[in-house]
Every structure is written in C-alpha cells, then in structure tokens.
C-alpha cells in the first residue's frame, strides 16, 4: 500500500491538482477566518468552522474526481488490477493519500487558533473538537468522492456527480426545517453531513457522530472495493 500511497501523492502534485486544492483551501479558509473572526472581532473559532465546514465540502471533488476515472481513461487501472496487490489496498492507498493532501492545508490553518490564542482566547477543547469534526467530515467526503469517481471514466462527469451529491447533502440540512413529517425530518437530518459536526463544534467528543462519519467512510470504501471486483467479474 505504501507504493500506491506514494504514487497517488506524487500524482496529485505532478498534475497540479494538489496545489490547486491547497491554494483554494487556504484562500477560502483565510477569507472565512478574516470575515468570521478578525473583521467580526470575535474570538469564537466555532463561527469560522460553522461556515468553513460547508465551504470545504465543495473543495473535496477537486481531489477525488480523478482518483479512478483518470485511471480508467488512461487504462492504467490494468496495471493496478493485474499487480499482486489486493483491491482493498488500491482503494485505501488512494484514500489515505488524498486524506493526507487534505491534512497539509488543514495543519497550516492551525495558525488561526494560534492567532486567537495571542489575543487571549484559550478554547483548546473547542478547537480540537472542531478540527476533529472537520477531519471526520473530510474522511467521509473523500471516501464518497472516491466511490463516485469509480462510476465513470471522465473526470468532468465525476466532478459534476460529486458536486451534485455533495450539494444535495448540504441542502438536506437546510431542508430539515422545511418539512413537518418527523420521519422525513429525521432522514434529512441523517443525510445532512455537515450538521453531524455540531457536537464537535462545542468541544464535545460525540461518539455517535464519530461513528456516523466513520461508518460513511467505511461504507463507501467498501463499495469502492465491491465496484472494482464487480467490474472484474462483469
């Protein structure tokens, strides 16, 4: 898996995808931090994360759109699938490499709570909780994006599909308050991926929400392996 991880990491940076993602991530997170904390003269990091969690969801397709679609288009999937490695390691190698690329700008944004700390805001639990929530959100979104990139051999189609699915997941949160049916409300609340970070936003380690994100991640990684195997059999 180490080889696959390194190859994917190299690929993301040699094709500029990684740089574009990091640049957009830092630009948008900087803008959100400036607006929600600096200009608002607020030391509450929660307000930054409440906006940026939603924004970050729209950045993940940049990283995931080509994960498998590009391999299929260039026929390099033949190299991966005829190599003496398991399908699980192929899927996991790509997933971990993508997640690690996401971690780079996320680590850079640690300077935001550091700035607030200099201004005397000391909210360690809230900061750690929010970063953990964002990490879990990223892991679920990357797994879902990886699965969606398996369904086509066009990066563009993969990106559009991922944006459509992520858009629906974000809209589900807003739609929760618009429906009166409790079952439908519960279903929409379950689908609204960013609202599951709310527990972490207050610095509380919410085991249920952690399980939710990890389950979504595991489900889509499993479905990716299943799709690869099914394609081999079809």
């Amino acid at each position: 898996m180490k080889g696959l991880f390194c190859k994917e990491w190299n690929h993301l940076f040699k094709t500029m995808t990684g740089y574009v993602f990091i640049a957009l991530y830092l630009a948008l997170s900087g803008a959100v931090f400036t607006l929600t904390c600096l200009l608002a003269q607020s030391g509450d990091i929660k307000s930054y994360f409440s906006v940026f969690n939603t924004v970050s969801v729209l950045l993940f397709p940049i990283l995931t759109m080509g994960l498998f679609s590009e391999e299929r288009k260039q026929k390099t999937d033949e190299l991966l699938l005829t190599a003496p490695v398991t399908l699980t390691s192929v899927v996991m190698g790509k997933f971990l490499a993508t997640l690690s690329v996401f971690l780079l700008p996320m680590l850079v944004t640690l300077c935001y709570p550091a700035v607030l700390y200099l201004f005397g805001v000391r909210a360690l639990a809230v900061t750690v909780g929010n970063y953990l929530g964002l990490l879990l959100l990223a892991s679920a979104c990357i797994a879902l994006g990886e699965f969606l990139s398996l369904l086509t051999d066009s990066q563009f189609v993969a990106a559009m599909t991922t944006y459509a699915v992520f858009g629906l997941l974000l809209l589900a949160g807003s739609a929760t308050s618009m429906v009166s049916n409790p079952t439908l409300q519960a279903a929409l609340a379950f689908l609204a991926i960013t609202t599951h970070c709310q527990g972490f936003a207050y610095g509380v380690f919410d085991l249920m929400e952690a399980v939710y994100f990890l389950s979504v991640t595991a489900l889509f990684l499993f479905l990716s392996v299943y799709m690869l195997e099914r394609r081999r059999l079809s």
Partner: protein
Amino acid sequence: MLQVTHLSKVYHTLRSVNDLSFTAESQEAVGLLGPNGAGKSTTMRMLAGYLAPTSGEVELCGLRMADRPRDVKRMIGYLPELPPLYPESTVTEHLRFVCALKGVSSRDTARECERVCGLLNLSAVSGRVIGRLSKGYRQRVGFAAALIGQPRLLILDEPTVGLDPQQVVEIRRLILDLAQQMTVLISSHMLSEIACVCAHLLILNRGVLVADGSAQSIAEKHRDRSLLAVTVRGDRLLATETLRQATTGQGTLSVQERPTSDETDFLVQASAQADLSAAVFQAVAARRDALTITSLCAKTPSLEDIFMEITRGGASEPAQAAQGGCGDA
C-alpha cells in the same frame, strides 16, 4: 507451467471466449493469433487476472488464479495493447512504482530498474517524463515494467504495434532471448509477426480455439486442399462464367478484380487430390478469341492461407487473394 482449462468469458449475451483450453511449457514462446474481435485481448486479460473468467481455470506453476490470485499475479508480467503508463511520471518513477506494486524490496529496486532499463535500452531516457516520450519509447517503458520482478509468464498483447521496423526487430530479438528464461505469450492478428518468434501457435476465431500446435503441424493438418491461381485477360464476366463452369462440383472459385487492368485474378480451391489445371486451361483455351490465360499456377496452401481459411468469418476477415510466386504462362 501454464494450464488453461475450459476458459470462457461472457459479456452480457456475447460469448467472447468459449471453452478455451491449452497448455504452455516453461521457456516457450506461444503465439495467440486471430482476427480482430477473436477474443485474444480478453483471453490475455483473464490470464493476467484483470478480468475474472465466467467459467474455467487458469493455473500457473501449479497455483490456481482463483485460489491464490496474488501469488499467481506475482509470477506474471503483463503488457496490454496500450501500455499502462502515468504520463506525468518519469521513467524511473514509473518503474519504481511497479517495483513497489510487485513487491520488489526497496533494497533491490534500484538494481531491478537498472536491469530492465538495460534490457530495453531505456537508460538514456530514464529521467525523462513519460508523456514526452515517443510512442516507441513508451512501448518500451511498458515492456520494461512488465519485466520487473522476473516473471515466470510474460503476457504481451500486440507488443510491436506502432513501433518502427528497427524497434520491431529489437523487440523480436528480446522476446526470443526472454523465451529462453520464461514462458512468453504474445498476441497478434498478424501471422508473420508471430511466426518468426513463436514455435507454438494458438489460433482463435470468434472466441474458439481453432488450431493449437506448431506452425508445421497446423499446416500439415490443414493441407487437405490444393489451390490454383489463375490470371485471365479479357472480359471479366465471361472469364468468371468460363472458370465457374470448368470448376463446378470440384472446387470453389474466388475472384479478385484488378481495377486498372483488363486482367482478373481467380483462386480455385479444390481437394488435395483434384487437379483442375487442365480443365481450367482447356475451358479458357476454348474461348481463346475473347480470353487469354496470362498466369496459371498450382500452389500448396501457405500457413497464411491456412490462417485465413480457419479464421474465415472472423470480425475483420481480410480479403483472400491469390498469392504471388507464379510464373507467367
């Protein structure tokens, strides 16, 4: 060494490979021949583990692909028709990645990359980005990647497509060398391509194995007919009718018109015992006022003719024409 038993692949309702069984020994070059759409690439993809067969088994060195896919894949080097390369990587980076995939230890990786680069004359371009290499060099990089890990079975799907004549000769020489160390399975739709490197031929047509053996044994088995190549000057319709009458009930006639000439080529196929040359000569001579024989030659079917014959009805059947080598009448 390699044992393939009742291998079949069905895509929806299309049976791409049908009940294919054959064996290949170690240190043997085996040629998989067939017209386009015969099922060669599907067969190779199943042997390489890229596709799972609908039924049947692939066994390499006593290990079944279905039971121990990783162990079997470790013994296989596979070069698909389009080499699987990452255009943004350098040659060395790509080969290092393949080493990692094939489980070559990091200590041996540099040595292994050097070895395959040396075999394929890639040392001069090892630091260059693959996307900027010529097609010939990209094919070589794909070939080098297939050789990593010293496989026991090397599967090459049309390895010389797109190469210039010099590179084709080099690759053929390399394949012959490699066949001294491992089993090499090469596919092509060109008999001439395969016949010069492989002693063992497998001919596929519409997914069915129609011939298995050496070129000589296949030729002997199918030399149960004679060919008569005739060229007639004069009215084509009259010539066709005359030859059809002369060969009726004894052989089949195929016609190839020459657009810029008043001559027409005919190929008469009959059983090996039948000699139709006298009958054809007399029939045309009877119409000597309008027709003239410019060439009449009895032929023994070449391996190419046999290949055409047994793959007749394939997806892209080439036009069958009388071959040269005949003296003028």
